[in-house]
Each structure stands twice: as C-alpha cells, then as structure tokens.
C-alpha cells in the first residue's frame, strides 16, 4: 500500500471551511492541477493573512489542525487542492462529514486524534525545526519526530471501510469493481 506521511505543517485553528481551503472563484477550473497555487490563499489566522507561499507550507505533506476541518461547501476541490500540493494526510480532532468522505474517496487520509494527542503534536513544534510524521496503517499509529528532538506516538481508530477505500485507490475504483 501507498506510504502516508512526511513533513508536517501545523495550523492552529478550528472550523477551517472549504471556502478557505479553496475559494469559490476557482471552482470554474476543470483540472485539479489548476488549483495548485490557490490552496488556503485567503485564510486569515489570528487576524493576519496566511502566507500560503511560505517554504515550510510548500514543503508540507501532512497537515495538522484542530477540530471540524473542511466544514461548509461539499467541493471536492478542497481535497484536490491538498492533493496537488503533495499533502496526503490531514490530522485533526474532527472533520466535517463530506470533507472526510471526500478524502477517503480520493484514497488519502483524514485521521482523527484525541484533543490531548493533538496538543502533544502541537507541542513538538515549540522548539522549532521541521516535524516529520509517519502513519502506520497496520498498527493504526501516527509517529511524529520533532526537528529538535522529541517524539510522540498516538493511536487512532479508522473505519474498516475507509481503509478499504484507501487500499483500492479510492471509491470510484472500489465501486466500479463491486457494484
């Protein structure tokens, strides 16, 4: 199976909606690639504009965030915008239902962790340096290594069907075979 994980980027906010992940004005695009420069470009964090061109964000393969990530519009463009930017895992306390389903439907991971675990992951960033995260889908664990030392391991539970979707490479491939 595909390997999941890589350099992590942390966004300390809840309720990030899909309008913020990819603004509606890009919904006229008919290729996923065209979304690439616009991921989170209008996000406001603590009253400041988020720098979506920052090198550490550009290098991100895993996003760590808080609760209810991906709420709002059903647009799968939000998942594709992550995908074409090389992000294959989003870790949060909780996700909006449609966004979570869209992630697994595309064969990538939305992992839910307890708040205390998310807090631990955020703590790793305090000392600076890039945090690397590896996902083990056999053991159902997330392992994070801090850039300046320190590591955290957390267990998650993932619905067996969601795992099958990931193994099949997404819902279309799965459904085409099965139904």
């Amino acid at each position, binding site marked *: 199976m595909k390997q999941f994980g890589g350099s992590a980027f942390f966004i300390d906010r809840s*309720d990030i*909606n899909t*309008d*913020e992940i990819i*603004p*509606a*004005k890009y*919904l*006229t*695009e*008919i290729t996923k690639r065209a979304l690439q420069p616009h991921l989170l470009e*209008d996000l*406001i964090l603590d009253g400041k504009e988020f720098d979506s061109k920052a090198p550490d964000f550009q290098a991100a393969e895993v996003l760590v965030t808080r*609760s*209810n990530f991906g*709420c*709002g*519009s*059903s*647009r*799968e*463009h939000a*998942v594709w915008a992550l995908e074409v930017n090389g992000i294959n895992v989003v870790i949060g306390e*909780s996700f*909006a*239902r*449609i*966004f979570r*389903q*869209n992630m697994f*439907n*595309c064969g990538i991971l939305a992992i839910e962790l307890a708040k205390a675990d998310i807090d631990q992951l955020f703590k790793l960033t305090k000392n600076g340096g890039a945090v690397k995260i590896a996902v083990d889908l056999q053991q159902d664990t997330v392992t994070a290594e801090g850039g300046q030392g320190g590591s955290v391991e957390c267990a998650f539970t993932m*619905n*067996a*069907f969601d795992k*099958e979707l990931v193994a099949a490479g*997404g*819902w*279309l491939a799965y*459904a*085409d075979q*099965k*139904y």
Partner: protein
Amino acid sequence: MGQTIAEKIFAAHLRDTPALGSMVLDIDVVMCHEITTPIAIMDLMEKGMDRVFNPSKIKAVIDHVTPAKDSKTAMQAKIMRDWARRHDIKDFFDVGRNGVCHALFPEKGFIRPGNTVIMGDSHTCTHGAFGAFAAGVGTTDLEVGILKGVCAFRKPETMKIEITGTLPKGVYAKDVILNIIKQLTVNGATDKVMEFCGPVVEAMNMSSRMTLCNMAVEAGATSGICLPDRTTAEYLWPFIQGDYASLEAATEAFRKWHSDTDAVYAGTLTIDVSTLKPQVTHGYKPDQVKDINEMAGTKIDQVYIGSCTNGRIEDIRAAASILKGRAIANSVRGILTPATPAIYSQALDEGLIKVFMDAGFCVLNPTCGACLGMSSGVLAEGEACASTTNRNFNGRMGKGGMVHLMSPLSAAAAAVTGEITDPAQFLN
C-alpha cells in the same frame, strides 16, 4: 426497537454493509449542477466510464453562474449541456428554465417521501423537508452516483429537534434555524440527521420546512428531515394524483415514513419559539448568532434576497410586505433573485416585482448569484451585506466582505434603513 424515519429509509435502500457502521445505499435521485458535475463528467470520460446508471433518475441544472459570465463558466455549462444530450437526460434545465437547484427540483415534484437523494452540493439536505434522506456529497461520490446509482455513508444517528410554542409575529423559519445552529454550534450535529418535529414544524408550509432543512449542514449534519404529512401531500399533489385515490390516501401512505414512537435518538433539542426574536449572524461562522436588536445600527451596503434558503415566493411576499410603499436607503444596493422562473413569474403576477423595483431593488434572473460570490453582487473589501442566504464565511460573497445572515423580513427592514434593524417596527 423502533426506527426513526432516516433508519426506515436506510433499511429500504440498503445495498451493502461494507463494514460495521458503514452502508451503501441505492439512490433514487442524483442531482447535478454545473459547478461540481463537469469535472466529474471529464474524469469519467478520461477513465472511459462515460455512462449513467439511469437517465430518468438524474436531474441536472445550470444554476450557480447563469447565464455564463465568462469563457470558463460557459465551458462548464457546455460540458453539462452536451452530457445531458448525450445521455438523454430529459430533466435538464438550461437558461430560461433554470433556477437554484434546491428550489427548482422540489417545485418539479422530483422528491418524494422515503427517497434517497444525493448531489454534489452541501445544501442538498434541503430536500429532507419532503421526508427524504438527502445529502450533499463530493465529486467522487457524485461520479459513483451517476455511474452506479449508489452512495456510501457512515450510518448517521438521528437527533431530534423539537420545535414548540407559537412563532411570534415577524419571526420566521430562518430565525428558528439560526437559533438552533447557535445552540448546536457548527459541528454539533456532525454525522447526525436532524429530525425537525413538533407543533411548529407541523404548522409550517413546505417553504419554511425547506428553510429549516437547508441549514442543517451548517450545524454539520448529514441531513435534515421532516415527517411527510398532509402539507407534503398537498404540495406534491399535482405530481402524485395518479398514484393515490385522494389527498387523505396519500397522507395516510406517507405515514409509513414516520418515526416510530419508540425510536431511539442520539439526543433531543427542544426549542420553544414563543419568545424568539429575529436572529442575525455577526461573524464568519453560521453559529455566531445574536438577537437582531443586539446588532441594530450595523451599517449595511448591500441587501440580498434570494438563494435556496430564502428565495421562494413566501420569502418574496414577506420582504414585499415591508418594502411596499417604501424606498430603500440611498446608501444601500438592493438585489432580489427569485430562486426559480415559476417563483419569478408568480411574483410578477402578484405585483411583488413592481414593489421591489419601486423600492429601488435590482431584480435578477433566477441563479445562485451573489450567494457564493461568483457573480451578480460580489462585495468589495470592507462592505457588509444583509443576506437571506445560508453562509457567512469569510470571503463567501467576495474577499473582505461581511455577510449577515437573516430572514427576508429582516433583510427588507435593513434595506429600508441602511442598517441592521428589527423588522418589528415595520409590522402593524
């Protein structure tokens, strides 16, 4: 053990149980619009899967940006149009016959009690007003729906939302649902179906029930749902009169979709609306809601009356009751977008369009328009809009704009004064 209406619908449509807690359902109606469908069509074509499971179960409309505003939206419309022709999708609605999906499809009688409905649009939950399980999905789910007529869900539990008391004058379904979202918060109903019941819902017309269900997703819900009754049967009568001997017979048949008295709920929220004030949002999340008098005096640059939440004839009538014989403030731009051609036409017949135009409103063709900030009323940075839509996200109606969600009556009051205003002062 008894079942809720949602559980009865799941049982009647269950195709597969791929894992504990997951279900694959047969879908009765797959609805499509030109923002999320063309990319699905292109992907299916690329994969050599350009097929549809059943053209009569697919309903398609161009509604978000219509008539096209530029070459890209023109191409999205063309992809839909060509696809509908290619697959002989008869229920396809193009310029002149098109309107906002969640207002147009109910009006055409496409949704029946007990149906399963999906669409690549988060406000698909609106159709739950008819006693259907209707859920918004992403593009991949839409592709599988188009191709196979199935959709997978994590089985949602039902949350009972009991609405009691009597609605005060000037307080509408929109105020009720905003207050419910305030209480539940934006993810309070995630992975749940919100079942709206109680005397206030029973007394509501279909338009108000659609307003309630429309915003269920703003509390994170998979769907909203109402129990189908005589009101539902009356609304659907032109489409079902061949199927039932009488309205009573249809009403009786619909009872099969009522939740059992011993059904198990994941929780109950009871709200007595007797003292509810008109509600308005104040931030960038739909659960940031206040009584309107707490926000009174907030300056407004634009008023938008329309959308799948509140662009129906009842909404236009309510707003017109305040606008009649009055002019909107000089500082305000007023935009009315009747949600469908039939609503527009009805508003013309009733003289309501004239009321809006005389008051200084601009009247647009049926479309989503300003609701999602892609055309027809985008805000400039720093501007505020009093809007009857369902989302106030940062940038939703244009970068740097602020959207205050409210009822059509409150929006009309704001248009007259140029600021957020309790509509009570205009009611006699």
